[in-house]
């Protein structure tokens, strides 16, 4: 019996869970208060960061499967709300501990405390936690979480190292946000980071022992760019992605989007005379512009010889030879979920709304948070909870039935890559088409059910995957985890632009499950922030189908001429026509008059001239007449 088969064998899982709690479950209690402090992350620039109990960085956690985590999160800010999400945990039966604000909980108001209290029953592997409130984790509110299995890991290693990758901005998110969601950023160009960081520093030194197998748990905790990761002259054997153990796969380079995790084994050399470069590289295709002073590579040092010379950066011939995670196979070989019961097809588009700001859309809807957290709507709506309408018309809400096989077909009409993350589940990636490059004139290629790559027998499973530019992905999962689960692009900028949808899974079962009921603490958090913990998306508790007053997106930009435009055009045409009429009138009626004037100027009697020469008034009359006068 392998540890990693547990996810998909619920009965066995329950058995193990009870065994674990009885036998050796520990409870880890943390009291965390957010705040601001100054910290120099990359060695070049000190800036305000979000601290945990006054310290930075946030702690990296290590627990065992079956353990209970209790985080008392106190909002120590004075001007903003906060929240906390443990990324990748399935939170089965504890949906309200998942963390995204306005989805499973109310935002925590300044001064308020919320208890995140759950056991990690279904997951082991590499995870992380972060604020799920607008961009806060890009200001540093994040950390890694390693969950050890109850048994041994399905591979051998000597030592374990957690490697946290990210990008780093010198401006805080508030400043960047103002420029980002702005009429003067009409293309939605994401702010360009200043550096790539590793374990909250730059140019890290990692002292290694020779002939040793290291397990590197690599987590990209950034909010924007994907990174290439390689170590000079060292192969990496991938053994885990996003908490899913996979058949060993050796590669020289990884491509890690934000929120993805890779565990790799590295066996060190016997020779300690040389030190090697650990390389991170921006996926610069995601950057709107590449500033001249931006270092696309970041070098850290793998030191066999502590006192030896630090290595130069390592170059590679091609960055296209990275491991394609599509071809990984989960160790427990879950077969392809056949024939989905429900297929959700969504098209990704980036466009501007009437305020000129660039938004991201699923099927022409940009996610607009409801007035009541969706989980609380699901719990309070009774039978109406099965009607997606109660969750609002601007939230892309889909209601799923228990144990259905769900397929998400995601067509990316945008020209960028997007890493999509589903809360509460790992999913099978059954298809990912190649990217189509608009620079060479290729257009978007939506998924074609009649013509696609063959689906693998044992698809790779994880919780965050990227879709290629103008291309498509197809995901399948089993709706076996009642709850409200957020599905969104993990690029924090795009989440702000509304690239998200809601899956409301088996709401009636949630209503009837004791562990899913709101705690007093949850209700209190809502009350302290001035929100209701019941009602539909508009906050209506009487008629759940009445959405009057719900939050909706900014209006679309109208096509063609509006009333304003027609008025402007009419006036302009009128002005032009009137102007031409007055010009013509002046031009035609003035002629005679001015002739007379000139004749007078020349000292003659206009009447006399008229008599002499009426029929043949021509342009040089003045001169001819003058000469007549002389004669």
């Amino acid at each position, binding site marked *: 019996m392998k540890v990693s088969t547990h996810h998909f064998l619920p009965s066995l899982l329950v058995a193990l869970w009870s065994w674990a709690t009885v036998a050796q479950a520990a409870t880890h209690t943390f009291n965390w208060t957010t705040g601001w402090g100054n910290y120099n992350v990359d060695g070049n620039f000190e800036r305000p960061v979000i601290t945990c109990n006054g310290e930075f960085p946030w702690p990296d956690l290590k627990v065992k499967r079956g353990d209970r985590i209790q985080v008392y999160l106190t909002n120590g800010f004075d001007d903003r709300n906060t929240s906390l999400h443990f990324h990748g945990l399935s939170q089965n039966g504890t949906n309200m501990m998942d963390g995204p604000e306005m989805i499973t909980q109310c935002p925590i108001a300044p001064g308020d405390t919320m208890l995140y209290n759950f056991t990690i029953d279904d997951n082991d592997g590499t995870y992380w936690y972060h604020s799920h409130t607008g961009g806060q984790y890009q200001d540093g509110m994040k950390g890694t979480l390693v969950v050890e299995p109850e048994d041994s890991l399905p591979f051998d290693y000597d030592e374990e190292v957690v490697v946290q990758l990210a990008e780093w901005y010198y401006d805080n998110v508030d400043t960047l946000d103002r420029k980002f969601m702005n009429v003067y950023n009409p293309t939605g160009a994401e702010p360009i980071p200043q550096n790539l960081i590793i374990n909250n520093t730059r140019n890290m030194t990692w002292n290694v022992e020779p002939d040793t197998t290291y397990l590197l748990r690599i987590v990209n905790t950034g909010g924007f760019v994907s990174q290439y990761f390689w170590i000079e002259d060292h192969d990496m054997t991938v053994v885990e992605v996003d908490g899913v153990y996979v058949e060993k796969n050796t590669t020289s380079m990884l491509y890690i989007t934000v929120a993805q995790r890779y565990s790799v084994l590295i066996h060190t050399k016997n020779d300690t005379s040389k030190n090697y470069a650990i390389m991170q590289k921006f996926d610069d295709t995601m950057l709107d512009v590449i500033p001249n002073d931006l270092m696309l590579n970041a070098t850290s040092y793998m030191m066999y010889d502590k006192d030896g010379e630090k290595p130069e950066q390592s170059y590679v011939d091609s960055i296209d030879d990275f491991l394609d995670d599509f071809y990984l196979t989960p160790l427990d070989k879950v077969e392809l979920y056949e024939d989905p019961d429900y297929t959700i097809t969504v098209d990704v588009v980036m466009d501007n709304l009437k305020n000129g700001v660039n938004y991201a859309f699923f099927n022409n809807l940009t996610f607009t948070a409801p007035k009541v957290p969706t989980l609380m709507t699901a719990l309070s709506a009774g039978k109406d909870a099965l009607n997606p309408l109660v969750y609002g018309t601007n939230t892309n809400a889909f209601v799923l039935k228990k144990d259905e096989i769900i397929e998400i077909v995601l067509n990316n009409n945008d020209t960028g890559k997007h890493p999509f993350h589903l809360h509460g589940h790992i999913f099978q990636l059954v298809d990912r088409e190649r990217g189509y490059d608009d620079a060479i004139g290729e257009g978007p290629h939506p998924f074609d059910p009649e013509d696609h790559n063959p689906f693998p027998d044992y698809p790779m499973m994880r919780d965050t995957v990227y879709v290629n530019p103008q291309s498509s992905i197809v995901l399948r999962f089993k709706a076996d985890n009642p709850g409200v689960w957020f599905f969104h692009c993990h690029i924090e900028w795009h989440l702000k632009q509304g690239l998200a949808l809601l899956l409301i899974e088996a709401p009636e079962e949630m209503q009837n499950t004791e562990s899913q009921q709101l705690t007093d603490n949850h209700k209190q958090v809502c009350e302290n922030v001035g929100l209701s913990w019941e009602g539909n998306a508009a906050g209506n508790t009487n008629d759940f189908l009445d959405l009057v007053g719900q939050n909706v997106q900014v209006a679309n930009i109208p096509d063609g001429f509006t009333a304003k435009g027609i008025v402007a055009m009419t006036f302009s045409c009128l002005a032009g026509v009137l102007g031409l009429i007055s*010009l013509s009138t002046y031009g035609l009626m003035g002629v005679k008059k001015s002739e007379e*004037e000139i004749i007078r100027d020349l000292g003659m009697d206009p009447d006399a001239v008229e008599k002499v020469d009426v029929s*043949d008034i021509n342009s040089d009359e003045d001169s001819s007449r003058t000469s007549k006068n002389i004669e």
Partner: protein
Amino acid sequence: MAANKVFNVAVFFVVFRECLEAAVIVSVLLSFLKQSIGSNDMATYKRLRMHVWIGVVAGFIICMAIGGGFIGAYYRYENDIFGSAEDLWEGVFCIIATLMISVMGIAMLRVNKMQAKWRVKIAKAMLEVPKDRRKKWSLKYWATRYSMFLLPFITVLREGLEAVVFVAGAGITTKDSKATAYPLPVVIGLIAGIIVGTLLYYGTSKSSLQIFLVISTCVLYLIASGLFSRGVWYFDNYYFNKKTGGDASESGDGNGSYNILRTVYHVNCCNPELDNGWDIFNSLLGWQNTGYLSSILAYNLYWLVLMIVIGLMMYEERNGHLPFCKNLKLRQLKPSYYLKRKQNEELTAAEQEELFKQVNNLGVDEEGNVVVNKGDTTKVNVELVK
């Protein structure tokens, strides 16, 4: 863009307008010569007539050389000169061009007034006689001897340079315009100007000529109003592009390619800078597929101001002064009226009569210079011939 590659409408009209004025001057000059000298001394008349034509041709050649160099240089160094501020410069040139067309355009409707003005000016110039005739090699002596060359030379040069400045400006105001867009409108403008000038000299049906001029002026002012609106539009676009860091220009026609907060209308097509055909509407009428509040207001205000000015001119022509101000005329509102101290040069009807009488008494002295016959110049006003 196809149209702008070979024909720039604004260039055509400006060349036409300037050529017409030069033709008027030359025709006035020629008719003076014919009247005063042609009747007395045929040989001198022919010689002086030759001077006039040499002056015209010389002035024209110099203009073409300068103009060609100007435009060539602009297209060679275009990017270096304007760089990222291109929209700003386009706006500035649009406004300058508008002012130039607006000020000079209306005179086309009063081609007879234009003729009269030049008659007075030329008459004054011809009567200018150097006080001291002993300095044979002085500049002034030389200028007098070849006045029939210098007058048309300077005139053509002046009108020509005006056209050159404008043509260069008009080119800059048309985005992506090519140097190839100049020769054709310039040549056709010249031909049209010369034809109309010839018609003026030999005489043709006044009314049909006037209708032709009215239509030309209307087109000219349509262009001017469009240019004015475009100028303001470019300012808005410059501001937007500056704030967006040039992002918008990547977006083509679609959402985000313009500042929606200042937009009155926008259509995702018909972009004069990207779509074929619409650039003609742009250069003729100032069409933009994005209507900014500022550009629309500018367009309407331009016509409003023009109509007010025309109204004032019509009133002044009827009543001899501006409404409510008995002693005020339109030209007195122009700053140049005071700068050039024109009030000193204003002629009364009697003075003008005297002036023309003198011109008709022009003769040629023993050295072949144009002189005023002494016997008839008793009443010459010294101030006047200055």
